[in-house]
């Protein structure tokens, strides 16, 4: 039973990354300042990805919770550390990603937005450009994934 759940956990993680990859590619495509028609195509890709990602995400979380009970891992620190990290990355990606997407889509559909200054609400343009950047999302996601995977596979704490 435990092995089958582990199998399902890994399979749903792979499915989740497959869907999430589509969103990631759109963030990179936005960097190239696509026109209004191309932005429609990017939206279509996002819609497809958002349809599937939650299903795989729920499967991943559910199998993870069950595995925690079956393996009696809930008393171990590695599980809580990886959960905390997942939550942190999730919140960060969601907040920054949403801001980046909204700005990118607005800029592509309305050229007037392009001449507006980047700085907003006390955050300098440089800091904003650093955090609202697909490379930053990719690096955060990959480093976070590597740490979570290391915690799950090596169970060091």
């Amino acid at each position, binding site marked *: 039973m435990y*092995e089958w759940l*582990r*199998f399902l956990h*890994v*399979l749903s*993680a*792979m*499915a989740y*990354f*497959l*869907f*999430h*990859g*589509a969103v*990631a*590619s*759109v963030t*990179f*495509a936005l960097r*190239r300042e*696509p*026109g209004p*028609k*191309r*932005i*429609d*195509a*990017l939206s*279509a*890709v996002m819609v*497809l*990805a958002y349809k599937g990602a939650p299903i795989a995400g729920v499967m991943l979380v559910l199998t993870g919770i069950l595995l925690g009970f079956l393996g009696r891992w809930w008393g171990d620190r590695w599980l809580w550390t990886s959960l905390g990290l997942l939550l942190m990355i999730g919140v960060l990606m969601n907040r920054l990603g949403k801001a980046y997407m909204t700005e990118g889509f607005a800029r592509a559909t309305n050229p007037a937005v392009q001449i507006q200054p980047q700085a907003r609400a006390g955050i300098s343009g440089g800091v904003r450009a650093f955090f609202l950047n697909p490379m930053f999302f990719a690096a955060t996601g*990959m480093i976070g*994934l*590597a740490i979570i*995977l*290391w915690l799950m*596979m*090596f169970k060091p704490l």
Partner: protein
Amino acid sequence: MYSALRFLHVFSAFAFFLIHGATAAAMFALKRERDPKRVEGLLEIRDFATKWMGIPLGVLFISGIVMGFMGRWWNQTWIWLAIGVFLAISFPMSGFGRPYHDRLWHALDPQGHAPPTKKEPRRTEPATTEELLSLLGKGRPMLLTAIGVVGLGVILWLMMFKPF
């Protein structure tokens, strides 16, 4: 050392799926497109993903081969079956997916993109709307997804349970 390689193997598999997701989503979206500019946008997504897909795939392969030696798995049936299934998936994926995209690019931009095979005549003019619609309709994203998902499930099962 073996555990570190296993970690690298799983990590590169996740990275591979992350990048591959872009091409899969683009293929599904292409099926519904009618506008040449939007089709170009989707083809660019696929091109961008394809450019980076080789890196995790290479790491996945190398770590898998080294692990096969370290774990002395090469004389077991499951590893050969897994490689066989992987090849069986790869052929229809690249054999169907790549020419489909190349053909679309060539139809949209005959000067900038060559036809998928040398046998196919080179266009001098971009395709008409009817020709483009006919080409777009030839995509089989559901079939390729089904092949990929079932194949992945079988490979994962073989690797995790090592039944043979």
